[in-house]
């Protein structure tokens, strides 16, 4: 495994950096390092934030760079490769009707494809969850097909609805709450991406995968009602 460059990051925090390349295999290694840091320092930590190529480690009190570096670099990584749990693939139902996918024609036109090809291409493969950021519960997903890339809107909308599935450049994402934004909206999911009433408010972890599935407007309404009644169970499987 590639060893990171470790530096201090303000008071009581450290940053681990790997080469700036978005890559699933390297991200898997970063997740192993995250698990090692979490198990080495446990309740001495406030937070660990991982992104594509970095980990920020926020401590509750002062610890020197030497102690931190020596602790994690002295661990025999070969024994730690199994420290992570197996990633999950989550099935996320999305209604791609124009009634909810306001910009689906813009995305189709920009890429010279038929409108129904947008949902076909968007559901054709799982997307890797790299990390959560931007908004509580907003997942940074990797793997958008080249023929769906579309620039942001020139003028952002004041309100993108909760559950909107959208595209910006080569990124795709799901809005966890109503929010202003310039992303192109191609559909909407009834699934709750962030739930304050749960001990861990998001079920999606870095390294997991999201598989979108096209549903009708009727099914969208049906699933919404089941979620409201607390009767809906999201479909998940162990990622292969």
């Amino acid at each position, binding site marked *: 495994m590639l060893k990171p460059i470790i530096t201090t990051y303000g008071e009581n925090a450290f940053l681990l950096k790997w080469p700036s390349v978005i890559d699933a295999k390297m991200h898997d290694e970063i997740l192993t390092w995250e698990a090692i840091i979490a198990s080495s320092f446990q309740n001495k930590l406030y937070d660990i934030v991982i992104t594509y*190529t970095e980990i920020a480690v926020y401590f509750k009190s002062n610890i020197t760079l030497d102690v931190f570096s020596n602790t994690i670099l002295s661990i025999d990584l070969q024994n730690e490769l199994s420290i992570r749990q197996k990633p999950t693939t989550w099935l996320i139902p999305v209604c791609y009707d124009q009634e909810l996918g306001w910009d689906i024609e813009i995305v189709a036109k920009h890429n010279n494809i038929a409108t129904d090809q947008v949902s076909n291409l968007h559901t054709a493969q799982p997307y890797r969850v790299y990390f959560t950021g*931007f908004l509580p519960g907003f997942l940074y997903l990797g793997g958008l097909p080249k023929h769906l890339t579309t620039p942001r809107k020139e003028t952002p909308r004041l309100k993108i609805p909760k559950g909107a599935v959208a595209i910006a450049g080569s990124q795709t994402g799901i809005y966890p709450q109503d929010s202003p934004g310039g992303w192109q909206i191609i559909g909407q999911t009834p699934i709750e991406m962030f739930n304050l009433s749960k001990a861990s408010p998001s079920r999606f972890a870095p390294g997991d995968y999201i598989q979108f599935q096209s549903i009708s407007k009727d099914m969208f309404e049906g699933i919404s009602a089941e979620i409201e009644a607390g009767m809906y169970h999201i479909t998940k499987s162990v990622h292969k």
Partner: protein
Amino acid sequence: MIAIISSGIYTTLQDTGRFGFRKYGVPISGPMDAVSANNANHLLNNDINAALLEFTLQGAVLKFNHPAIIAITGATNSPTVNDESISINTPIKIAAGSMLKIGRCATGSFGYLAILGGFKGEKRLNSLAHYKGITTNQRILKGESLFFSPHPNQDVPIDNKPTMINWKTNEIPAFKGPDFNMLDSQSANLLSASNFIVSNEISRMGYRIDSERPIVAREIITAPVQPGTIQLTPSGKLIALMPDCQTTGGYARILQLSNKSRSILAQKRTGEHFSFNICD
């Protein structure tokens, strides 16, 4: 109980913050001027995490239905109880039925009101700190009631002294940030030598800072950021991140402020000038 007669310009409940949820993209929040907020709790022998009120520029008017012991710190300097002036940076006994007017901030932007035992309320994700989408309200509203546990032993603590910081300093110490080395030598020199001006785009998420001479850096792959991170946008504006900032960002992180430096910058108003004193 305390009734909010007037909420002031922008008043929030804060504690040390919402820790443990940054991996879900939840900001930590907490006081803009952590030094002054800690002082207020320290003066009362409160836990450092006790919830207090943060005022912005113009404070609230509060009616106390129960006796309390309070401490006011930060950028408030003309508070009154029943129209008589009271001191700041010291514990004050408040009788039941009193009307406390925090008043305006003559210098600085953020003031704090701590109460013996701390304010009570419903914690969301382990914190009372107001934040849109996490707490029911985003800030304190007129007509709202605030609750605290009147302390059985109503003696005023006398021994604690506040840590004073000088907001008027126009030289702010800063560490080099994770992306400092992306700057060419001319930009790095400008960062030490230039004067910076607080713009009018300021919020609890961050302050946009104008520079007198253009400094630029390219964007980075989205990476962790925290309160006190100074980002540089491709258009040459600096953004000083504050407690309600996002957990990750895509602008170059050229500097990092300590809590103390961030507290000094938070108290600066639109149009104020300053420079950075950069250290390793």
